[in-house]
């Protein structure tokens, strides 16, 4: 439970583990997810995808398919008004460095990855749509491809795109590296590899589109980003105000529904047919087609003094973007900024590159580049501790960043860093050591810390808006374009509004995620919604409160500052109450609005010159420390996690239940990443197209996660909250790797930490 950090003001609702407003509907299965929607006369859609990772389309003939029974329309690239999609930051700015717009709605002459969309079909039934897609006459001529970032960067490598295979490069250089290494008492070198990972939300990509009675193309879709209505409008070449995206409650997102999925296809098909159209991907399609988490190759050289103090970090990062840019340049930026870890280091070099290949495209996934680096920097610091005989908690305490320190990129930390406390608490939470249950089993413990930005890069000028208003009976309405991916994004906003306006939580109605009817809130990504939309709601609620109290003050002949809103009444210090409906009627009479629309702008900044370490990249960071106790079977290499504790400074837990849920769920997703999940690709061909081979951990595979919620009150969000959506996925892989090393002395540097890899590290596979 939440640690007791005295924060002064007593809250009515903030800090209480209230069941979410959407919980009852979800357990009663009353929530209508994207695929649950059906409309009269609805068509069903299918996508024809490239079977080849690299090929030219030499023939694409749709006439036969078009004549198949039930077929309404067959579309190819030439039917798309504007066939390029920009990987933009929707609704905000486009000035994001080397980002290029290079995604096609449908492939035109060339396919660059297996699963790339080539044609669309809408038909009366799903079977008819699939049959027609299969009947499209398409011929490919395979073209040599590149299937790894190293190969892509080699001289003479086939080019995935005209401009060459380097998609983005970032560099950081701080301090005199050679001099720093010369001072070091110990230098640890390591090469680390992380794998291709799928978001694997249990709800596949899905949506329904129709043309509304007023001619607006309306798309009800499972998305983390309703602002993609602009992408749809651009592709369809219609004004942006003629496209509306209604975001459903998502059956999980994790970054997998951050980029465009079905919405452009649906918009096109609805526009061409004038009929409602539904598209739901199969699991195979989802695993084939959706952008994934980047695999990284990371080379580290870390120097430390005998005290454990890190003095030098030399880091090379290489990531695989797959065939299209998506958000890779930004993902790499996150890696670059976080590469040295949440630690002080006077001399740092980071050289980071991301290359195009003909592998499945990679883009956003929970952790967004700041999580792959954790495996490397936490494995490094653990080896430094071992080399110097230092305690793992102590060595992190020695190096931990503090307020006022600057990151290698030059950003000065303006808020409290609770790292030493987090590490100590996570470590202590493991309790007494578990004795090994058998002679061939060893038990060990590992610690891993991390920091993850929350909120967008400052030069993206992030903003969110929200509307808060009273109905005449004193019930409250919140409108905010926030997509709820299942993390309780919407409910927390209701809790904040109810807190400020003194109404019970069940007197709040929340309207979310509609690009036409709710104020835009930006994406549910980057751990930003509580921070951004929380601040927007807080601002709107406070303004509204002032409006209401000023009217109440005139009715009561009191000073507005002496009034409070509580339990649906205006109350005075001396205990008089005025029912809210009375005040609201008076508002109507005197022309004072009973609602307020607020826009919250995050602190903005200019793009930094990374090489010279010129300053701020992210608004702020969330810090964490996880501790794992594992047993390792020294005959098989099998690893079982016995105990797990995860501590984060969340600034303020608006809803501790949701905070714990994010920590527990993120930690287990991180354990899946650390221990078993991997999309295996051979020469661009994805072998992992079902849940039989993409291994999501089951209840039998993971321990209970003990969530340790620390509240420094220092975050930039409402009431001092920090973002907590992504941070918990960072440390688990490293914590387990460090625990394996603690148990056995064997260090595994490649994820996932399979039994076979552990066995190899233990020397069991030598013949």
């Amino acid at each position, binding site marked *: 439970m939440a640690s007791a950090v005295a924060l002064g003001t007593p809250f009515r609702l903030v800090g209480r583990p209230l069941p979410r407003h959407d919980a009852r509907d979800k357990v009663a*299965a009353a929530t209508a997810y994207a695929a*649950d929607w059906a409309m009269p006369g609805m068509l069903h859609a299918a996508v024809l995808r490239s079977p080849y990772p690299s090929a030219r389309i030499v023939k694409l003939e749709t006439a036969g398919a078009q004549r198949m029974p039930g077929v309404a329309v067959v579309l190819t690239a030439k039917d798309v008004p504007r066939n390029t999609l920009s990987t933009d930051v929707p609704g905000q700015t486009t000035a994001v460095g080397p980002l290029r717009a290079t995604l096609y709605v449908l492939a035109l002459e060339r396919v660059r990855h297996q699963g790339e969309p080539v044609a669309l079909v809408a038909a009366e039934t799903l079977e008819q749509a699939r049959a027609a897609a299969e009947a499209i006459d398409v011929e490919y001529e395979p073209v040599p491809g590149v299937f790894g970032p190293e190969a892509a960067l080699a001289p003479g490598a086939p080019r995935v795109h005209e401009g060459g295979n380097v998609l983005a490069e970032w560099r950081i250089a701080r301090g005199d590296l050679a001099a720093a290494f010369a001072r070091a008492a110990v230098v640890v070198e390591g090469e680390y590899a992380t794998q291709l990972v799928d978001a694997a939300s249990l709800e596949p990509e899905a949506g329904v589109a129709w043309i509304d009675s007023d001619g607006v193309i309306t798309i009800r879709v499972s998305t983390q980003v309703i602002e993609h209505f602009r992408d749809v409008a651009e592709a369809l070449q219609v004004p942006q105000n003629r496209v509306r995206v209604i975001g459903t409650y998502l059956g999980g997102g994790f970054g997998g529904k951050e980029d465009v999925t079905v919405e452009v296809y649906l918009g096109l098909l609805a526009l061409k047919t004038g009929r409602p159209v539904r598209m739901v991907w199969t*699991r195979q399609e989802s695993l084939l087609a959706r952008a994934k988490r980047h695999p990284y190759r990371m080379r580290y050289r870390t120097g430390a003094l005998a005290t454990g103090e890190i003095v030098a970090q030399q880091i090379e990062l290489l990531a695989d973007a797959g065939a299209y840019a998506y958000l890779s340049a930004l993902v790499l930026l996150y890696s670059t900024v976080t590469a040295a870890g949440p630690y002080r280091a006077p001399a740092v070099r980071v050289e980071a590159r991301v290359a195009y290949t003909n592998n499945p495209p990679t883009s956003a996934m929970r952790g967004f580049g700041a999580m792959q680096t954790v495996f490397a920097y936490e494995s490094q610091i653990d080896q430094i501790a071992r080399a110097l005989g230092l305690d793992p908690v102590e060595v992190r305490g020695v190096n931990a960043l503090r307020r006022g320190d600057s990151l290698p990129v030059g950003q000065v930390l303006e808020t409290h860093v609770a790292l030493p406390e987090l590490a100590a608490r996570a470590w202590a939470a493991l309790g007494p050591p578990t004795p090994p249950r058998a002679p061939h089993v060893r038990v060990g413990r590992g610690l891993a810390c991390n920091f993850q930005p929350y909120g967008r890069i400052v030069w993206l000028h992030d903003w969110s808006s929200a509307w808060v208003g009273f109905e005449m009976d004193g019930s409250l309405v919140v409108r905010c374009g926030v997509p709820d991916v299942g993390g309780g994004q919407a409910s927390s906003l209701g809790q904040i509004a109810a807190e400020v306006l003194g109404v019970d939580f069940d007197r709040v109605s929340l309207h979310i995620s509609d690009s036409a009817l709710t104020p835009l809130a930006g994406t549910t990504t980057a751990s930003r919604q509580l921070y951004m939309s929380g601040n927007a709601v807080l601002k709107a609620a406070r303004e509204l409160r002032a409006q209401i109290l000023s009217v109440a003050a005139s009715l009561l002949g009191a000073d507005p500052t002496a009034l409070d809103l509580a339990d649906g009444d205006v109350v005075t210090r001396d205990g008089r109450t005025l029912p809210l409906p009375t005040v609201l009627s008076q508002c109507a009479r005197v022309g004072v609005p009973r609602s307020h629309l607020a826009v919250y702008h995050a602190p903005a900044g200019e793009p930094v010159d990374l090489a010279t370490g010129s300053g701020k990249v992210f608004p702020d960071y969330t810090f964490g420390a996880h501790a794992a106790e594992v047993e390792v079977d020294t005959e098989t290499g099998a690893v079982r996690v016995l105990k797990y504790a995860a501590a984060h400074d969340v600034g303020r837990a608006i809803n501790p239940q949701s905070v714990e*849920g994010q920590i527990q769920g993120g930690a287990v997703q991180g354990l899946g990443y650390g221990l078993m999940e991997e999309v295996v690709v051979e020469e661009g061909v994805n072998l992992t197209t079902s849940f039989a081979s993409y291994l999501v951990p089951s209840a039998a595979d*993971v321990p209970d996660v003990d969530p340790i919620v620390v509240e420094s009150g220092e975050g930039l969000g409402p009431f001092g909250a920090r973002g907590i959506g992504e941070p918990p996925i960072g440390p688990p892989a490293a914590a387990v790797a460090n625990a394996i090393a603690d148990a056995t002395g064997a260090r595994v540097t490649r994820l996932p930490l399979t039994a076979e890899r552990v066995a190899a590290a233990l020397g069991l596979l030598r013949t």
Partner: protein
Amino acid sequence: MKARLSLTVNGETHDVLVPVHKTLLEVLREDLGLTGTKHGCELGECGTCTVLVDEVPVLSCLALPADLADAAITTVEGMAEGGRLHPLQQAFAELGAAQCGYCTPGILLTAQALLADRPSPTRQEIKEALAGNLCRCTGYTKILDAVELAALRVGVPR
């Protein structure tokens, strides 16, 4: 080949005329309008589509309605009684065991079958019973907590 079938779902008998190759999941969602049962992987590899057949959890994506003429099928829509949530549903809502909520129907039904069989299961027994239901959001801890809470409440008369 279409078949005229009589399916008893949540105590109600439905006469449907459906292609025989439609799975129970498809018939529930598309022909009976019971969309509470969710589609996860369509190959029996995730447990999302779990329903009860004669109180036993099965995968509706791999069940053929033609085999279920004499069976009592329970979906998540059949858990609440007269608008009153089942104790499992109540506990899941209270403890935050449903996050995105997509795996929740299958997990609720699997847990209902467990509690019918073992009213006071150990935490390990709950884990084993739920080992066929993937959840991507919660990390399972709160799900296990909620099943324990529901078991406690059902066991103790209120």
